[in-house]
């Protein structure tokens, strides 16, 4: 293990050594572009929250608000640095008798680290202190969905109904339905709910439109999926997840050039850099090699830190960009232990097929049978494996 770490570290250094340190010649030379300018409203909000947390170090509310804002930024931008900042903000409150808001944000950070059991516990703690906490309830449902525990997710959605608005509650329920063989019904109900709540805030609309696009795609209706994706994009919000989902859709539709344009400025996010490289490979673009190299370095760097939070992406990288089905299968199998969403299943099935080890796909095939998940692509893969 030490040896592996040593090799990885040496690799990280030699990769960085290729570009030797230099002395810029011009004072005006721009070295780095920051995600926020000082005048941006988001930056002003952050400054305010930071000041509040600094001037009231005993106030858990101020710390939780700051941590929560950082976490949202991490989600929007796909930038993990904000997660570190959020953890730092919550540091003074580590005990289990912390206020609801602290427990809630701490739960989010735990799920980010893939400590799902710990996250569910913290979120439950938040709900005990504040039974009407919509965020805690929603995230519990989301975590159960990732683990493919649909019964538990359904339970959380039901508990959500009295507090949350109709659109959100329908979205929660529809997500479970769409994962368990009732995508048509889920799509219809959610679409009707959205039409009814045309005045919903754009953040909610974005989420609902993304779900609708995914459901339509699953139902093999690419034109409808495309329309929903475009409507969601037109809201003008930055959302890493939406971009990843839309890029996956375009890649499957064999439209890689559009992905390259869509994600042009998003190479900072690893999830999106992976899509950029996949698109580049499909369209035979010259920058693909550099992107693949950069991805490899990032995966090596996080392995070095002892973190593998991105196993599904790593498996996809190994399978499609490195042509190493055995390593891809190992990563995809490991990933399936904690994450069981459709894309996790897809990469496991494909890797098992490519590595000619159909037995390794058994857990994903079982999930496909038991859930009744509708997807022509996954069914095709399953048929090939059987």
């Amino acid at each position, binding site marked *: 293990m030490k040896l592996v770490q*040593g090799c990885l*570290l*040496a690799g*990280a*250094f030699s990769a960085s050594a290729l*570009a030797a*340190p230099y*002395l810029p010649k*011009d*004072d*005006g030379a721009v*070295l*780095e*572009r*920051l995600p*926020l*300018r000082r005048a*941006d409203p988001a930056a002003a909000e952050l400054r305010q929250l930071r000041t509040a947390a600094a001037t009231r170090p005993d106030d858990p509310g101020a710390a939780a608000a700051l941590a*929560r*804002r950082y*976490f*949202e930024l991490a*989600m929007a931008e796909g930038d*993990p*640095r904000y997660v*570190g*900042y959020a953890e*730092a903000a919550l*540091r003074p409150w580590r005990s289990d008798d912390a206020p609801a808001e602290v427990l809630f944000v701490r739960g989010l950070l735990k*799920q*980010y680290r893939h400590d799902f059991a710990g996250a569910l516990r913290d979120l439950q703690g938040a709900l005990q202190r504040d039974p009407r906490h919509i*965020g805690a309830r*929603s*995230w519990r*449902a*989301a*975590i159960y*969905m*990732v683990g493919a525990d649909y019964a538990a997710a359904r339970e959380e959605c039901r508990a959500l109904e009295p507090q*949350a608005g109709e659109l959100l509650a329908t*979205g929660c329920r529809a997500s479970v339905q769409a994962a368990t063989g009732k995508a048509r019904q889920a799509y219809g109900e959610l679409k009707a709910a959205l039409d009814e709540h045309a005045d919903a*805030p754009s*953040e*909610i609309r*974005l*989420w609902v439109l*993304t779900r609708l696009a995914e459901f339509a795609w699953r139902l093999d209706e690419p034109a409808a999926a495309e329309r929903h994706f475009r409507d969601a994009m037109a809201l003008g919000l930055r*959302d890493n*997840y939406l971009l990843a989902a839309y890029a996956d859709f375009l890649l499957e539709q064999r439209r890689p050039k559009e992905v390259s344009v869509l994600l042009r400025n998003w190479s*900072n*996010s*690893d999830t999106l850099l992976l899509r950029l490289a996949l698109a580049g490979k499909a369209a035979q673009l010259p920058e693909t090699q550099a992107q693949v190299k950069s991805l490899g370095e*990032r995966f090596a*760097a996080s392995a070095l*830190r002892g*973190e593998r*939070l*991105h196993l599904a992406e790593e498996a996809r990288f190994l399978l499609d960009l490195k042509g190493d089905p055995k390593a891809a299968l190992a990563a995809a199998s490991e990933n399936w232990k904690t*994450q069981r969403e459709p894309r*996790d299943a897809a990469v496991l099935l494909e890797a098992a097929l490519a590595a000619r080890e159909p037995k390794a796909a058994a857990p994903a095939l079982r999930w496909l049978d038991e859930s009744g998940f509708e997807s022509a692509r996954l069914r095709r893969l399953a048929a090939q494996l059987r």
Partner: protein
Amino acid sequence: MRILLVLVLSLFAGLCKAHKPSDSYLTLGAEGHGLRGQWDIALRDLEHAIGLDADGDGAITWGELRAKHREIDAYAFARLALRPCAIQPGALLVDQHTDGAYAVLQFTVACGEALPGELELEYSLFADLDPTHRGLLRARLGARTLTAVLGPERPKLALSAEGRSGVEQFLDYAREGVWHIWIGFDHLLFLISLLLPAVLATPRFAPALWDVFKVVTAFTVAHSITLALAALAVVSLPSRLVESAIAASVVLAALNNLWPVVQRGRWLVAFAFGLIHGFGFASVLADLGLPQENLLVALVGFNLGVEAGQLCVVAAFLPIAYATRHTWMYRRMVFVGGSALIALVAATWMIERVFDLKLGLI
């Protein structure tokens, strides 16, 4: 309310993001009685910690970074200790890593009279601002490279050059010696230039072997003498002069094959120029760092490693040269063509080293 909504929209989404969290790269190497170091810290992280974007336009320029040089040094080096030595900040440079631009802080570590047997490294950069930050360390002490990941869970680390036994150190340095011959093309080309004519002067194997033996021994004795003198700091020469002279020695040895001036006494040539090559080996050894109490072990180990590497080259070269010595291939292509090529390559090096240029040909 808005915050809540943004959060909820993440429902069922974004649970498995991939990322590049904050890392710094810390490199340490021995130099004289102390260490020299380089610390690459992301501009993004420095912006978060002390603020670099003076005009708030979302872009960090070299001017803005340079203006904060002192502040950055003060901040960073308050969070790194190498006890019992003292860190002296140096130049500020810039480098690109996979996730953006980094400030490169160069520094030296002064330890007084001699590098102590053990150093205690303590790392606490960004521990208060980002608990997920890690410092990736690579330290080269003696002939040994140590790597580690530093962070809140592992803020302290004992660095020791002499944690290894004498035998281990000897082998470490011997390995470095072999490696240096293998990658040190100038030494190899010099030796080969002198060996090329050995099989042509005589029809029998024994005299050819004797000739090779004399050349290799003379070269070895000569560079061992200067290597020892330089390593023990009895004699020291400027490295540019040494490197230029080494390149010149290769040129002359190769040209001597094309227009023979010295034939019988090639071992004398090997001895004379071997003295220069010894200074070249010494500078490599100095970069590795020499353990104070095991100086002799390191010196002998490194030298024997060089000899072993050299013998491998000779053992591979001689039988092939002897077997093919009558062929047109050997006489025209290898001997004449090879010598000309070596002279050309070495001449390029010589010009580069004398005038401190980069011609980029080889």
